[in-house]
Structures are given as C-alpha cells and as structure tokens.
C-alpha cells in the first residue's frame, strides 16, 4: 500500500458506506453514546445550576440591631431622619462602619417607631413634607401619612416599618431592606 515516499496513496474517494456493519451492536452503541453524552453533560450542568441558582440564604431573616441615635435626640411626634451606620457585607468583602441607609424615627411617649426611608415604589429616598404632616417621594410623587400609610401616588404598599427598641437611652433598629415595586413586603438579603 505504500509508495516510494512511504506515503499512503491518496484516497480519492472517501468511502461513503462503511465496509463493516455492526449489525445489532449499532443500536447498543447509539444508546451508549446518548447515555454517555448525557452523563457527561450532566456533570457540567448540575454544578452549574447549583452554583448559579439563587440561594435561599443571604442573611435575610436574621435580626441586625443597629444603634442609630439617643432617645433624648428625638422630639415627641416629629419624624426625624437618621442614618444607619454598620458593617456592610458585599459578597466576600466586609467593610466596617459604612452608611447603610437612612430611616425615619418618630418618638411616641416612651416608644419609638421607625420607617424605612426607601420608597416601596422604585427605591427613591422618601422625604418629609415641609408642613411636617406627611411624607412624600420626590421621584413619582407618592405620598404617605406620618404613620407610613400610602395615600397617593404609585407606591404599591405602605412605607416599610422596622422594629425598634430602646436600650439604656439608645435607639436601636433592626435594619432591613425590602423588595421594591410589589405589594407584598419581602425582605432582600
């Protein structure tokens, strides 16, 4: 089969039809190819899905008590905006003492109520009206009562309340963020 150069003669035509027919084995081999291919693909796809699927854990649910101000700094019945400072966790990086957001605090007797300043519509920052009788959002003009009830505008729900406690004269808030744009109140991790 070899010429002077030790090279196979050129195969002018690639045989179209196989010279050997495997007969009954052919079907079995096809199944093997399919199963083997599927197994191989599975070894890639399963970890991929596991890795990319949104994970249920993400810090949601757990209380994060943050000290925000002193009770004595608040005036009875008058909402006051305070910033929340705490450790910010961004995937693998934890940065100490970051500005995490702001909240509205109102003192009522010995108790304090807290409302998130993040608008439930699309997340703008809620402000107090000049007459101090209601809250409004500057982005799409949602209006809320001082208790946080949605009164006008596109906001799908009331302002988000936060749990507050007073410890030795210090106001502490369980700081949380919620999903925007939906009527349901759902915490984001």
């Amino acid at each position, binding site marked *: 089969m070899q010429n002077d150069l030790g090279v196979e003669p050129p195969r002018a035509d690639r045989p179209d039809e196989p010279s050997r027919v495997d007969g009954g084995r052919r079907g079995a081999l096809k199944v093997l190819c399919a199963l083997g291919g599927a197994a191989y693909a599975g*070894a890639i796809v399963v970890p991929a899905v596991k890795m990319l699927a949104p994970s249920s854990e993400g810090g949601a649910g757990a209380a994060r008590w943050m000290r925000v101000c002193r009770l004595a700094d608040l005036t009875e019945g008058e909402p006051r905006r305070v910033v929340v400072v705490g450790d910010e966790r961004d995937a693998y990086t934890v940065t100490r003492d970051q500005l995490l957001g702001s909240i509205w605090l109102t003192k009522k007797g010995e108790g304090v109520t807290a409302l998130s300043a993040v608008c439930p519509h699309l997340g703008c920052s809620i402000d107090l009206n000049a007459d101090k009788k209601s809250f409004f959002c500057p982005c799409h003009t949602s209006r809320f009562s001082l208790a946080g009830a949605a009164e006008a505008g596109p906001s799908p729900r009331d302002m988000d309340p936060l749990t507050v406690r007073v410890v030795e004269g210090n106001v502490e808030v369980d700081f949380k963020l919620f999903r925007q744009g939906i009527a349901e109140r759902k915490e984001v991790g």
Partner: protein
Amino acid sequence: MKLGDWLDERTGYRAIVRKLVEATVPGGARFAYAWGAALGFVLVLVAVTGVLMMTVYSPSATTAWASVSYLQQKVPGGWVVRGLHQFGAQAAIVLGVIHVGYAIVRGAYRKPREVTYWLSLALVGVIVVAALTGNPLRWDQRGFWGLRVETGIIGTVPVVGGVLQQLLLGGGTPGHMTLSRLYTLHTVVLPLLLGGIAAKHVWLSRKHGPALAKPADAVKSDRYFPTQAARDVIVALGALGVIVALTWMKHGAPLDAPADPTSDYPARPEWYFLALYEMRKPFPGKLELIATVVIPGLVAGYLFVLPLLDKKADRGVMKRLPLLVPVGLFGLAAGVLTFASMRTDAADAAFGKAVAKAEAQGAKSLVLAAEGVPPEGALAMLRNHPETRRVALFEQHCASCHRMGDLGPPQGKDTAPDLTGFGTKAWAKRVMEEPDHDTLFGKTPFKGEMPSMTKPPADPEAAAAFTAMKPEDLEAITDFLAAQAQGKKGEGMPGEKLVSQRCTSCHRLDGKTDDEDTLGPELRGWASVPWILAQIDDPGSGAAYPKGAMDPKLEGHMPAFKEKLSEKDRRLLAAFVQEQAGK
C-alpha cells in the same frame, strides 16, 4: 410547513447533520483515536467551568483571593466547579501528551499530516500556558510564588526577556495589573487561540483521515457515529471519572494563604513542571539558561522538525527507531526528573515542616475569610488578625533569642530563656534547680547571678556551707509563683512567706528587696500579663527587672520595645507569652 423544513430551507442544517452522522472512519474505529476526542470533551468541561467561575471571580490584588475563597466556601457547588476546572486542565495536559505521543509512535505526523501534527503540538503548548496563567489567578501563596519564578525565568531570556516580563506583569512587580493581564490572557486570548487551533486541527484530521495502522486496513471503514463516537464517549467518561474523583478527594482545588511577598514560602511548581524544576538544579548562575530555555527549546525544536526528518519509505516503528529514541529519552528523562524531585522533597524534613506551616496558614486564612475580608484585602486580614499577627511579631522580634513552642532560633542557638511553659510550676521549679542551664539563663548576662536551690555550688568552700532547699518549700514557692502567673496575688499562700524570707536578698517582692544593687526581678505578679508587658516595654523599668538590668555592661540583654512596637502589638505579645502559663 414543519418547523424543521422551514429551518432547513434557510440554514441547510440537515445536510450538516447527515454529513456528521454518516461520516466514516477509514481503517475502522479504534480506541486509540479516542484520546483526541476525549481531549475535546475535557476542554469543553474546562471552558464551561471557567465561564462559571468568571461569574464570581474578581481579578485584583485585593479581591482575587477573597473571591476565590468565597467561591470555594460559600457559593453552592463552587468548590466542585473549581475542582472540575483545575483537574480538567491537568487532564487536558495528560490527554494532549498521549494524543501527540500516539501520533509520534505511529508516525501519524508524516506527509500529508505535518501541519495537523504541528497544530497538535501547538495545542498542548497553549494548554500548558493556559494552566500557567490560570494558577496565579487565585493569588494565593502557591500561585503567586509560581508566577514570581516563571516570570523571573522569562526575564532571563536574552533580548526579549525584559520586555516580555514587563508585558506580563503590567509593571515591575506583581499586582493589580498583573492579574488583569493574566485574566485577559487566560479567559480571552488563550481560549480563542486554543479554539482556533483545535478547530483547524480537527478539520485537517477529518480531511486526511487517520494514519492507517496496517496497509490492509485501507479497505476497512466504519461509520463515525456511533462506532467511533461510542469509543470517544467511553474514553471521555473515563477521563471525567478521574477528574471527578480527584475533585471529590481534594475537595475542589487547593487554596493556600493569600499571596504574601514578604513570606518565606516553600515554592514548588505544579507536577507537570517538576521535571524542569529538577533539571535546573545542576546548572549554576548564568548556566541556568541552559535548563530553563535552551534544553526545553531543543526538545520542542526536535518534536517540531520530526516530520521533516522522517521520510523513509517504511513507516514501521522499528524502521523509524533512531528518530523515536530521542523522543523516548525525553519522556524517560521527564519521568526520572519528576520522580527525583518528589523524592528529594519527601526526604527533606525542613521542607516538609515548611509545607505543613504553609498549609496551616492556608487553613487559618480560609476560616478567617468565612467571616468576610476587609476592603484592604485578604493579606491585611491575615496580618491584622491577632492570632496570626502575634506569631509573626514573636518570630520577628523575640524568636532570634527566645524559644517558645515551635517558634525560636535554630536548635542550640538560643541566647535567652526558653519560654515554653513560662509561668508554669514546672518552669519555676526548673529555674530554682538549674538557673544556669543553657536553655534558661546560662547564655545570658545573668549567668551566675542566681544559685541553684538544690545543687551545691562548684566552689568547695561554698559547697560545704550549702544546704539544699527542702522539697516541700520548693513546692510551696513554685505554687505561689504559678499563681502569680495566673494573675492572682497569692496573699497568705505558704509560698508567699517563704519568698519574702528566702528570695528577697536578690529578688523583689512588692518592690521590696534587701539589696537594691541586686538584679533579681520582681516576683509579685511574675509571668502575669502586666509583668510580661512591663518586661517587653522596658526590661529596666523596675516593674519586672530593676534598672540595673539595662546596664550597658550587661551586653546582650533584652532590649526595650516601647519605642519599637505599638502598644497594641506589645499587649498582643504579652498575652501570647502568658498563655504558656496555662500549658
């Protein structure tokens, strides 16, 4: 009209599928042809897992390690993906070498397949470079020091070396830019190159068909699908099995402590480069280039020109033996050198110790990182954590004279008391029995200052007057001292009275001593945190040792660290030493 027809009219996909399905393998299907296909399968695995990791990885000197540790520890299945990627890459190197080796043995590189063969050589080369650019991306000790050495070697290449090194590092030293460049190479440039080469290689392989094993095979042929395809799948699954098993056993891929340019890390290359590493050893100084550049260059050159040399009519292995022998020798030498390198390291106890230390550091880093890494990066996290920082401080400032557990000067080089167990009863007892032992005060300026309580002095006259301390007194005193080390005052303990009677001729108790000129240290609060801190701050403050202890005549005495270390660091050290009292 059916959707299939609609699509076929516009794309002609059916003809392509038919061509694939009906393709034939001239000479018949063989397992030997499956290595290349398995390599293809594995490269797909590596590519997909690589893209997956890109969804988490962050290439910068401060975030790279942290993001990888996050992937390894926090992202669900992240460690599996890492393992598949790394062991997949190593499997690709092995499969590539087998694929090329088979072609060489069978003479499949001969006319008309020279270019097909060259492309397969290039394929293996690019895979290896991809592995080399991939390893440092973790920015851990192993990856970092590997990069240092490799770019160092590149830098020694005449003429182009310096420029090449600069290009790779993106500057003079490894940092942010280095990672950005390696990342670009690893995720964009090399995969494109690899894909291009692989496509052309496969296309040419199909064009020429396999080199026939026997001339008689020319009349045989099989369908590619499923006859050859089944064989391909089986070998690919075998490779996958090994990759998955390794991933499982090693729990993903290794991740050492964060890259630390100031550390002494026992750097070794990955196993596929151990041969080159070992070969470098006998070539000193400038001759190193022979091992790092010249010999690998010659081997690659020989493999490249092989098709041009091999033109004999007969393609039998025996007839081509003279050409194959060098290739066999390369393989043999690589194997022997790799083995030799592993054996040298396995027999090297100091190396083993350094590796164990590095591994412990790595494990600790992962634990710390699980709590989150500060924005300054993982190295800062490790350095500032008390548990690692105090060890580093002790090593840097104390361990050249003092021994404490595993830390300390080389054996026998101690010039200050061994602090192992400092503050325990046993330690106090030893000082009272043999204060001038080499591991206590025998090598300090205080040698001869304190007599043994149990052994007579060397001077015969003094020995005649010597009475050994009664064991129960010794017991009481050491009980009192051990209580001091625990931070107790020990008032009213039997030992307290004994100390005030028997020790204060040279020592102080509550600052009181019979002779102000003596140098014995304060025993109230001995070996407690404040006592040790006072000693670290200023060994002549009087709070531990009296002023006279800092007399310049007492050469080689402990220096004061008040000006040299921050208070936080000094406190860290004092607490670290005091922990010995609990051992």
